């Protein structure tokens, strides 16, 4: 990472992360989370200002609590919640994509096909999230006497690892696939143009050094190995 040109943005991050909060606090909008995370500070602005259209309140808690661990906030850059990934996910659920409109969804379905033959479930993304979240919350209630969202961070990490590896078996939902769907969509939201609701203020782009929609390097290709000095711009013209 080049030191000089990006140092202002680094300072921005530090400022933001002082205002923003450790992960657990972002559960603040959920009644359960509020009672169980007594040390919570105020929820981040990104989470606060957006009301989900698709996700129910318990689902919304799950989403925030999960993506908060997939991409946690720290000094490297914004966490997924601060970056608006939950908003991104909710908006995607309402989009053609969320309705499965980009996928071939005619039967018959053969969900037990080899994984290498690709997605073969009946679920559209929004159905997959609905089923998956409910099933995982059920499992957490049985195992931990708590919803996923109300678990402390280290226990949420443990559950996510078990989903990722497929160690948790759920009746209706293939856990590895669900986890992969969640992680894929989370990274999409983190790195997509901010107009989709995630990557607020292009924080994820600033973190890695991607100039976003600048898309013009004719002068720079002839300066091989030189650090690129400009921060990102978004499609709508936001600069950072």
């Amino acid at each position: 990472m080049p030191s000089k040109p990006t140092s202002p943005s680094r300072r921005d991050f530090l400022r933001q992360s002082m205002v923003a909060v450790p992960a657990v606090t972002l559960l603040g909008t959920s009644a359960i989370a509020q009672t169980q995370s007594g040390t919570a500070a105020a929820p981040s602005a990104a989470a606060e200002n957006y009301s989900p259209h698709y996700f129910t309140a318990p689902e919304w808690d799950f989403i925030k609590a999960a993506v908060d661990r997939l991409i946690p906030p720290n000094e490297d850059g914004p966490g997924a919640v601060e970056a608006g990934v939950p908003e991104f996910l909710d908006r995607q659920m309402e989009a053609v994509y969320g309705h499965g409109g980009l996928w071939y969804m005619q039967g018959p379905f053969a969900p037990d096909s080899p994984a290498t033959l690709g997605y073969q479930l009946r679920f559209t993304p929004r159905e997959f999230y609905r089923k998956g979240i409910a099933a995982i919350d059920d499992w957490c209630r049985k195992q931990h006497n708590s919803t996923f969202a109300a678990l402390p961070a280290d226990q949420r990490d443990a559950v996510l690892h078990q989903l990722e590896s497929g160690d948790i078996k759920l009746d209706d939902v293939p856990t590895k696939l669900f986890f992969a769907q969640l992680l894929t969509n989370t990274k999409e939201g983190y790195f997509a143009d901010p107009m989709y609701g995630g990557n607020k203020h292009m924080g994820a782009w600033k973190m890695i050094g991607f100039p976003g929609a600048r898309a013009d390097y004719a002068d720079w290709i002839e300066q091989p190995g030189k650090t690129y000095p400009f921060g990102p711009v978004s499609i709508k013209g936001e600069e950072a």
Partner: protein
Amino acid sequence: MIRQKPVDVVMIGFGWTAAIMGIELADTGLNILALERGAWRDTSPDFTYPHNADELAYGIRGELFQPLARETVTIRYGVNDTAVPYRQYGSFLLGNNVGGAGIHWNGQHYRPSPEDLVFQSHMAQRYGQKFMPADMQIQDYGVTYDELEPFLEQFEYLCGTSGRAGNLNGEIKEGGNPFEGPRRKEYPNPPVHDNYGASLFANAARSMGYKPFPQPSSNASRPYTNPHGVRLGPCNLCGYCERFGCFMYSKASPQTTILPVLMRKPNFELRTHSHVTKILLDSTGKRATGVTYIDAQGRQVEQPADVVIVSAFQMHNARLMLLSGIGTPYDPVTGKGVIGKNYAYQMMSNVNVFFDKDVAINPFMAAGSGGNVIIDEFNSDHFDHGPHGFVGGGYILGGQTGGRPIQQLLVPPGTPAWGEKWKRAAKDSYLHTTGVQTHGSVMSYRDRYLDLDPTYKDAFGQPLLRITFDWHDNELKMTRFLTDRAQEIANAMKPKQTSQTIRKPGDHYDIRQYQTTHTTGGVIQGVSPETSALNRFQQSWDVHNVFVTGASAFPQNLGYNPTGLIGGLTYMSAKAIRDTYLKHPGPLVQA
């Protein structure tokens, strides 16, 4: 059924090959009609900046791709398996709308090696027929490199291809590809400037005795006016190329090379939202009378025509021939029949190359093809295959096509997929990572083919195309050999770390992983109606007024990107139609 006024020539699908056919036949004065099932698309307003710089919409959700919800293909590994639908994009990306895959390609613009076109004869002569596995059924194209050379050149000059000749009229030129067949003229444009990752690769490759050269690229390196008077702009290395349209008018596409002229010809007509369901035959079954299509409102339309050019994507061409009953469907048990025969793909591998923070790769400064560097020592039959025991090969590429973070961000091996460690690795690696890629051939085999799926249907109720495909040992050996060479070069780049993606023995073809959209075969050209669907002019052996363009004609897949060869074969076919067929309609080659 609505019956439209007859036309002289009807073309099915309006991408690269139909645009070439259209412009090459337009001066005959014939009435030419292109039926395109998608919509009209043009640089403005469809690919303009800044909305084009949208990774989610184009790179991930696939704005430019055929909507799979309406039509996909099915896939199975073996002839006795039940196929399942390709429900989401992964392995390959089907084009859509006017321009087709010619919009979202990278512009990697290659010629075949001379031996690629006579591959069966060449390999049998050099190594003996027994060198090939018994179930491998590679064939010759029925066209030699020398015959095709003027047409390959014509396509490069249309596109404003940027590159450096390695063989000018038999003289080997420093800095070009010394393994290429002789070309009569230099590329129309000089190479695009190397990206930094590519220049590190080039230095390493050169130090090992290889002959690196700039990848031939239809990303124009400077303003260029093609022979039709259509102007392309200089590529600005925007990093949004494959999967995207080009807002700079730099990437050659039908829109940036032909359509501004063709669309104004009074004898040419384009009808969009016209989905062809069948090629119609007369009572003898030896002559096509036109096509039927479904128009935008859903009406059935009959379109009579004297000549039918099947110019859709490779898979759609094969499907349409099967749906229309032209030619004998291939039977993998007997090995007889030709339609659907010799489906092939390509075999890729990657070595990701991670540097320390003092090496600013800046991966976002990249074009789809221009600026990357190639070595071609291990492609085609550029090396003695005898000791290695496999057929085919591929090129090795250094550099990158962009740094779009959802799809192209790489983290070092051993990094978890999420959490703080992933985040730290993403932050530390992004600017300092490039890649070495191998781009390998896949041969054709008796049990790898296309037919109609017995179960799954498209939105109009027609059967989907079914692909029967999996890796054979030959390709797994090939990719191991090629990847080992790629790894050696990557190591010589002195990186901090590398990681490898390679298909290993026992691995199935994984349709979730993008490799290439270079699917081939199904309506192959060749020297005999017993073994091929088309003659050397891409004319159906069975129905002489049907021509089928595109990579469906490839008898096996080569180690290069297909578009250059597709263009050359199309120009050759267009010339034969114009100069010979129209005067004497009938078979251009006697069976």
